[in-house]
Structures are given as C-alpha cells and as structure tokens.
C-alpha cells in the first residue's frame, strides 16, 4: 500500500494498518493532506484546514485508542477550540472557537484528530449547500451538481476520499440527504443521543449530530465515541450506550421492514424507485419480512417542520447582534440600527427568510394558528411512527426522491427546495433515528449519480438500525464504488 492509496481506506481498514504498525499516523495525515490538495480545489468541501496541528497531534497519537490516529472532518457549525466556526455565514466569518464541543472532546478522548472544517448551507439551513455564504461545494460524482445539504461539505469530502469520515448535523435530513446524493453512509441518531453542547443551535428540538462515513461499520465506530449523556446538554438522554460496532454482523432473518404506503408519492424519480424496490427485494431474499404500514400524517411533515424549525431558529439566531462576537456593521446610528444593519449585512437570504417566517409564526395573534397547531400535528406524527414501530423494526424509503440536482436548479424557489426533504424530515419531528446507505445509481446525462436507501428506527434503537443497514451493505458493492474524481486523483 502506497501513501497515495491511504485516503481511499475506510476507518476500520485504516485502523488495522495503524495497529499493525504498517503505517504511522503521521503518514496518514500527510497522505490526506496531499489528497485534499489534489481534489479540493475542484470539490470545495473545506472552509478551513489545520493540517500542521493535525500532523503534530498524529505524532503523539495512541493508535490503540478506539479512533486512535484517525483524522476526521467536522461540519463548520461545531466548535473545535482554536479553529474557525463560521457556520458558512458572513456574520461568523472571523469567529474562532474558544472551547471544544462535547463531541469534539469525546472524539479527542477516543484518539481522533479533528483537522478541518467543512462547508454547509449557512447555519445548516438548506438542502444543497448552495446557501453557504463562503464557498461553493460540488458533488464529486458530477461537478455540475450539488452534494446535497446542509452537511454537503462533509459528504463531498468523504465521497472524494478527502476525509476518512466526518461529523455532520441533521435537523431535517441534513446528514442523510447529502450522504445519499454523494454516495456514502449518513447516520442520524435519536434526538438526545449525542450531546449538542458546542453545536451552534439552528432548531434546538430537532438538531442532532451524527457521522458521515464510507461504511456502516465506520458510522458505528464514530457513534461509539460520540454517543452518551452530557450534563452540559439538558436534552441529552441518560441512557446506556451499547457497543454499536460489536453488535454488527447479524443477518436479516426475522427482521420486519415496513414500507409506508404514503411514501410512494408521485415525483419520485423512476430510477430511484427502481433502486429502492430492488433493495427491498434483496433484503426480503436475505430473510427480512416486508410489511405494509401507514403513516397518515406524512403529508403534514414539511409544513410542521417549516413552522417549528423557523420559530426555533428565529429565537436561536437572536444572539447574532454584532455586540459580543462576529460581524458588526459600521456607521450604525444607534443601538437598534446596529442590530438591524449587522443582521441585514451579516445574514444571507435564506437565513433572513427563515428568521422572518419564524418571528411571524410566533408573533402575537398568529402563535395559536401556526406554532401551536404545528406542535400538535407534530405529536400526531410522533404517534404515527410509534404505531408503525409496534409492527416493524425499521421503515424503508428512498432518502431523497431524486438524485443530485444541478447547481442553481432549485435555488430560486425556496418551497421547491423544502419539498426535497419529504422523506427525511418527519424523523426529526418524531425524534427517531435513521440512516442512509448507498443502494444504486441513476444514469443521468451519461453520468452515474448515487441513490440512497433510508432506514428509520424507533428512538434509541440505533444498534438495530446499524445492524440492518450493515447486513444489507455487506451483500452489495454500492458502497465500494468511488466517484470519477476519486479514481482520477489516485491515478495522477
């Protein structure tokens, strides 16, 4: 194995080489640095890198720790001490984190090296990463297309072998959807499973941190390190954390998979539909029982989401006022003008739209009609899932109704962009866990675009969802396929 081949490895394979002392962590960082220099000018996954610090950390790393010597990319909305934390916003462009988020503290304790921050839709608001105020990220499978979002930088970095794994955040699908569009694995844990302390809040009752990786095993390895109770996040769940990686390896016999009939909507790309059908058939042939289920409130999920999420965002983003940190407008007349100009100049259009919508649905006279009603329908959605999980172990659907769309194709119409989240958004409202795994390709304009299969599980059932996803993955080759840019980089 030459240094050039190292970046293509999964975390698990990298670790066995490190532990057999066939390579050292320093070589891994060097190989990754070369890889990023070769492909990231085309992809645009990273907003900042600290490879010198990473190389130093690698020298001192203990490769026998659970993630010892493994460099990981971090979505630039999670605080890593001393590194920028821009949220891809002009308002935080010069911000430097003064502390480590709990997930970073835990990753470091497990021996991982957080070396770089990845691009995202500004404050994680978007489904294509086009809302980044700082950088354009391209899909490694087809550079004229989006990588998905909002964790698009994390997804593109992993897909292009420019990261061994990454952290993202999922508020309405922001880990699963970019994972699907970029052809990798993306895992959203149960709400409260992973501490949000040190994550810049977008929608506090929906946000959850999780891994984006090349394989299901790698996702389990990262989950082992980051899951668990944290006193610094009052919504963190005080529940025992199983060894997710050790639980992999079960087959699908006796597993009950639910197909929600409401998910067979019009507007699903026929190639996506065919790939999902083939995956379901395959899991059936591996012993899984396929059960028809109903989630009647599916049609309300997006509407509920865009009320609840914007309401919470309008409150959370009130802290960006030009006083204590971040951008400050010049020449403000007085204090109110300072707030107004700072926020006008500092936020991008999608963030402003959402703050305004959120302010409106919480405002006097409209609170009951919008916010309170949405929270009630949200409870119905939660009950729908609870009922479905009495009958099945997991729900199966496409992750996204379409493969990666073209840059600019949907940017002009916010509502059309919102509708792309139809399959992922309800899981956040219900607080349950879910994963996207590669399940095929669509042929579009002579290019292969990845398709993702979504599996949703009940709250705290991460171990089972990872087992099912792993059992499926192990009987396919989809996760082994690399985008053209990855192959090109290795030949060069």
């Amino acid at each position, binding site marked *: 194995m030459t240094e050039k081949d190292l970046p293509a490895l999964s975390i698990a394979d990298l670790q066995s080489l490190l532990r057999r002392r066939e390579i050292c962590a320093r070589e891994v960082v060097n190989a990754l640095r070369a890889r990023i220099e070769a492909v990231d000018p085309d992809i645009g996954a990273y907003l900042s890198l600290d490879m010198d610090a990473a190389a130093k950390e690698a020298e001192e790393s203990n490769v026998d720790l659970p993630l010892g010597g493994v460099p990981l990319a971090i979505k630039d909305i999670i605080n890593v001490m001393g590194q920028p934390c821009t949220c891809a916003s002009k308002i935080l462009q010069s911000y430097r984190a003064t*502390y480590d988020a709990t997930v970073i503290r835990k990753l470091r304790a497990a021996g991982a090296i957080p070396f770089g921050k990845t691009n995202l839709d500004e404050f994680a608001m978007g489904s294509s990463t086009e809302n980044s105020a700082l950088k354009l990220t391209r899909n490694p499978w087809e550079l004229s297309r989006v990588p998905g979002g909002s964790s698009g930088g994390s997804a593109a970095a992993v897909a292009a072998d420019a990261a061994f794994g990454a952290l993202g955040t999922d508020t309405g699908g922001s880990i699963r959807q970019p994972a699907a569009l970029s052809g990798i694995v993306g895992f959203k844990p149960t709400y409260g499973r992973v501490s949000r302390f040190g994550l810049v809040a977008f929608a506090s009752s929906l946000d959850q941190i999780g891994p984006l990786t090349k394989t299901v095993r790698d996702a389990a390895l990262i989950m082992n390190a980051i899951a668990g109770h944290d006193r610094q996040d*009052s919504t963190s769940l005080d529940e025992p954390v199983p060894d997710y990686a050790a639980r992999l390896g079960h087959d699908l016999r006796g597993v009950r998979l639910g197909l929600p009939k409401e998910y067979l909507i019009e507007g699903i790309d026929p190639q996506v539909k065919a790939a999902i059908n083939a995956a379901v058939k395959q899991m059936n042939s591996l012993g899984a029982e396929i059960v028809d289920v109903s989630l009647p409130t599916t049609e309300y999920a997006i509407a509920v989401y865009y*009320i609840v999420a914007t309401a919470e965002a309008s409150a959370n983003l009130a802290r960006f006022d030009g006083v204590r940190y971040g951008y400050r407008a010049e020449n403000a007349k007085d204090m109110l003008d300072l707030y*107004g*100009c700072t926020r006008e100049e500092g936020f991008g259009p999608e963030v402003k739209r959402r703050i*305004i919508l959120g302010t409106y649905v919480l405002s006097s006279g409209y609170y009951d009609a919008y916010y309170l009603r949405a*929270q009630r329908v949200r409870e119905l959605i939660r009950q729908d899932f609870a009922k479905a999980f009495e009958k099945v172990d997991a729900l199966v659907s496409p992750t996204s109704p379409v493969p990666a769309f073209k840059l600019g194709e949907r940017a002009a119409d916010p509502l059309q962009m919102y509708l792309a989240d139809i399959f992922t958004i309800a899981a956040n409202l219900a*607080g349950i866990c879910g994963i996207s795994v590669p399940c095929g390709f669509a042929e579009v304009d002579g290019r292969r675009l990845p398709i993702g299969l979504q599996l949703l599980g009940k709250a705290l059932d991460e171990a089972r969802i990872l087992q099912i996803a792993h059992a499926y993955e192990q009987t396919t080759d989809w996760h082994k396929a690399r985008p053209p840019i990855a192959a090109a980089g290795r030949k060069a």
Partner: protein
Amino acid sequence: MARNSDLDVAYVAKLARINLTEAEAELFQKQLEDVLKYVEKLHQADVSDVEAAGHGLPIFNVFREDAPRDWFTAEKALSNAPRQANGLFIVPKVVE
C-alpha cells in the same frame, strides 16, 4: 407593497431586527406567502384531542446542584468581540 396574506414582511423584519432593503422585502413577501399557503394544509389535520409536542421524545426538567465551577474567563468571552476595552463589550451610546 402588494400583500395576499396577513404577513407584512417589512413589519416582521423590524420585529426581527433586520433592516431589509425594499427589494428584499418584496421578494420575501412573495416567497413566504407561497410557504404560508403551503402550510395552510395543517388546518385539515384533526388536533382536537392532541397535546402539543414540545419535543419528539418525552424530556423532563433536569436539575443539578447550584454550585460554582470553572468556566469561561472574561478574556475568552471577549476574544471574539467586534469592539472591547477594559474587559467590556463596547457598543454605541444607548442612553441620550
């Protein structure tokens, strides 16, 4: 500005402390009216016997000892301030 709903973007932007330009206000007015029209479907849902969900999962108040512990220094807290002096955040004059 033309409006097809109760939403007055220019007014709500003031509440949200965002000095929108007129062109932005006009664009957002149209775009957000589309979104509000879409969310009207929530009125079809029967929520008569349903309590509002605060979170997807039941989460209760979490208490801890009210004890001091080490946390941010003033220096760290000020390290990202756009303007600061003498251990304070400096802002435009508030009181005339």
